[in-house]
């Protein structure tokens, strides 16, 4: 074990940050799907007047008293959010903002009252609200461990109910769950996590711990159970990374580093996640573009031959590009590609389709024209639901409709011909 890890203070901080990361990641998943990501932010701010009031009432500066004050204020804030969204037309985001700003403003009033009174400095109070992970000690971590355990056990025990609440609150109500009660329970857990996390990472960063790991986990899966695990993992990992990084250099605050670690993981997820990530989306887009370009080139060659009345007519790339109004560079690249696939032969810069190429092009052109007919006569055909991404029209429309479309093609004189000599003439 390296000596910077042997330090017992570092171990406590590390343990505390990991636990905080795991529990807020798990809770954040539910909050995110409930579209209440910023709830943590609002409730963390709402805790300030509670802490101040606790100090004003008891006159002592002890952690349990602050925790209770923060908890009560947080619950009050959560109750206000629920009441405002339920009983007025104010939406979630505005309700969160209302509670955040008004509670915090009131907290500032109380804070300055304490400052200006004989009670002396408000030192301990702002440390509590703005967080100081480096000062975590054994008892703090025990409290955090207990709360993290409560959060995780409650999430596991109520997984089914929370899942229902996240995806279909109406249905949950319909089968007899009280959505209000479940929502309240979820908020209670969030308040608990926020209050515990506050002193470790501070207001803003507590908000981040509830949002960022969950938002990162969302990229990797469409299943809630997997998302919860991932979010817990990402949260825990961020906690560990942030705590370790802050020990490596002087004057590196733990809380912000945890958040930055989580943000880096979020960015990695945003870019690299399979299916939902930006890279994977870009790859899909490129694949579709390349397929479309290839088919356009095939169709251009086919229609050129069709117009010339000779299937073996040869055409230069520039000529073809000019006739079909396509970009000559792109077209040249596609023709080179088709040549490699054995669908096109080129002599002296003039290309023509091979028999294999003609057959492929025929399929593409026929399909394309059938879709055109479909779009022209969609209303009359009465087929109101199709998957336009379909590669081949036969896969997605009833046989009778395709037959009708073929008749329409003939009416419009657009039916493509399969050239008679599709068999290799001579090698």
């Amino acid at each position: 074990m390296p000596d910077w890890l042997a330090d017992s203070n570092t171990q406590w901080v590390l343990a505390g940050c990991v636990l905080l990361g795991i529990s807020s990641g798990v809770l954040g998943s539910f909050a995110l799907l409930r579209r209440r990501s910023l709830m943590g932010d609002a409730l963390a701010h709402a805790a300030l007047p509670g802490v101040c009031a606790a100090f004003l009432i008891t006159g002592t500066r002890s952690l349990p008293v602050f925790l209770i004050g923060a908890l009560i204020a947080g619950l009050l804030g959560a109750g206000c959010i629920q009441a405002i969204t339920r009983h007025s037309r104010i939406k979630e985001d505005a309700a969160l903002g209302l509670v955040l700003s008004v509670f915090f403003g009131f907290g500032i009033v109380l804070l300055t009252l304490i400052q200006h009174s004989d009670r002396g400095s408000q030192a301990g109070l702002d440390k509590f609200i703005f967080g100081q992970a480096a000062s975590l000690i054994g008892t703090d971590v025990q409290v955090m461990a207990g709360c993290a355990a409560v959060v995780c056990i409650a999430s596991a025990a109520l997984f089914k109910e929370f899942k229902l609440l996240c995806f279909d609150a109406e249905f949950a109500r319909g089968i007899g769950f009280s959505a209000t009660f479940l929502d309240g329970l979820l908020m209670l857990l969030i308040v608990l996590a926020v209050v515990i996390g506050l002193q470790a990472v501070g207001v803003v960063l507590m908000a981040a711990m509830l949002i960022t790991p969950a938002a990162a986990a969302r990229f990797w899966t469409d299943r809630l159970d997997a998302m919860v695990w991932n979010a817990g993992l990402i949260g825990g990992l961020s906690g560990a990374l942030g705590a370790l990084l802050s020990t490596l250099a002087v004057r590196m605050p733990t809380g912000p580093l945890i958040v930055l670690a989580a943000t880096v993981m979020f960015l990695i997820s945003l870019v690299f996640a399979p299916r939902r990530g930006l890279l994977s989306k870009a790859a899909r887009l490129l694949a579709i573009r390349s397929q479309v370009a290839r088919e356009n080139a095939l169709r251009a060659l086919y229609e050129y031959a069709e117009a010339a009345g000779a299937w073996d007519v040869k055409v230069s790339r520039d000529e073809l590009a000019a006739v079909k109004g396509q970009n000559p560079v792109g077209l040249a690249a596609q023709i080179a590609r088709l040549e490699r696939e054995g669908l096109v032969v080129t002599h002296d810069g003039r290309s023509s389709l091979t028999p294999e190429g003609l057959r492929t092009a025929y399929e593409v052109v026929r399909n394309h024209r059938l879709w055109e007919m479909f779009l022209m006569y969609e209303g009359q055909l009465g087929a109101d639901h199709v998957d336009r991404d379909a590669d081949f029209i036969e896969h997605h429309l009833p046989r009778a409709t395709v037959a009708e479309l073929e008749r329409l093609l003939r009416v419009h004189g657009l039916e493509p011909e399969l050239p008679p000599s599709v068999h290799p003439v001579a090698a």
Partner: protein
Amino acid sequence: MIGTSGAWIILTGALVAASCGFLGCFLVLRRLSLLGDAISHAVLPGIVVAFLLTKSTTSLPMFLGAIILGLLTAFIVQSLAQGGVQGDAAIGVTFTALFSLGVVLLSRFAYGKDLDLDCVLYGEIAYTPFDTLLLGGKSLGPRAAWVNGGLLLLNVLVVGLLYKELKICAFDPEMATAVGVNVALMHYLLMGLVSVTTVGAFDSVGAILVVAMLIVPGATAYLLTDRLEHMLGIAMGVGAASSVAGYFVARSLDCSIAGAMATVCGGFFTLAFLFSPSHGVVTRNVAQRRLRRRVAQEDVLLWAGRRLEAGQTAAFDARDLSRGLEWLLPDAAAAARRLTGDGLLAARGEGFSLTERGAAQAQELIRRHRLYESYLDDLGYATDHLHAAADRVEHHVSAEMTAALDVATRFPDRDPQGKPIPRSGS
């Protein structure tokens, strides 16, 4: 006496509140309320980098740094949202990351330098009168008042010029796209205004006041009106009123002025939430209770009227009423007492009977009920369902509607069950 500096503080607060409240209406409608909070945190790295580059705490470079970061925040949030991140999470991820970056930069590179998180980031409105704008050696009053006055003018001007477009984007972005409004441009324009306003305002009056004024007045106005023009006006008014009232609260308690302004504004919202004529919780409750009470009274009158018609004794007591209407005894007694108070029932020892006025009103109610039954019967409604339907609707049939029903059913003498329909005023 509030003195010159007090007046300047109130004026500055009112200007901030008005311009934030004005923009806040659009944020509330577009469900972007928390963007102000996000921007006011996210600008920190811009301020720190500006400080590190120029090595000075002059406000212009920091102001520019903050505005760049503000716009960047709006841009990142929008890009993330388009990249498949849920809107609220996009806001949360962006501002917390940028703020953390700012804190790390600050504590790593600017530690112990002349840059204090509190005073740079969170200006204090109480100090605004001391930072005056000088022109040709003459003091023109606090810089903050001029900055925020300018911002208010800018906001009103831009929104005024593009009012139609912003309005349609706020309520129906799809429709806006369909009619050819550049929704993205409008969005960035609005975000640009929010960034500039947020930065300009919190530099002088503190973040908490800006965040509160971007949300609370707009939300308050949203509960008081259904028209955007009125909403904008009310939001500005609520903001300005909070700043005046907040100042006096802070002075009498000797506490933070910005905090008191935000708290007072929260009080205004609470009032609107409870007592708004159209959307207030208490208002709606009262209206509901009134309706319930009226329905109960009409039910009693109908019951007593039918009794009289059936030739039973005119006098009845609360117990009869409770049995007849299947109500709890206390409810029946209370309803009868209220009707007695209104002069529609007369108390006779233990019992009650209809007064002349009460009997007339009962006749009128019976007439409504039976005319409505006739009407439903004409429509081909099942005969055995007529009574229940009429029982519910009779409380909402006005005198004009009764007359119209009479015409529509060709002035019947008897209802579908053969009971007589009393003539009006008989």
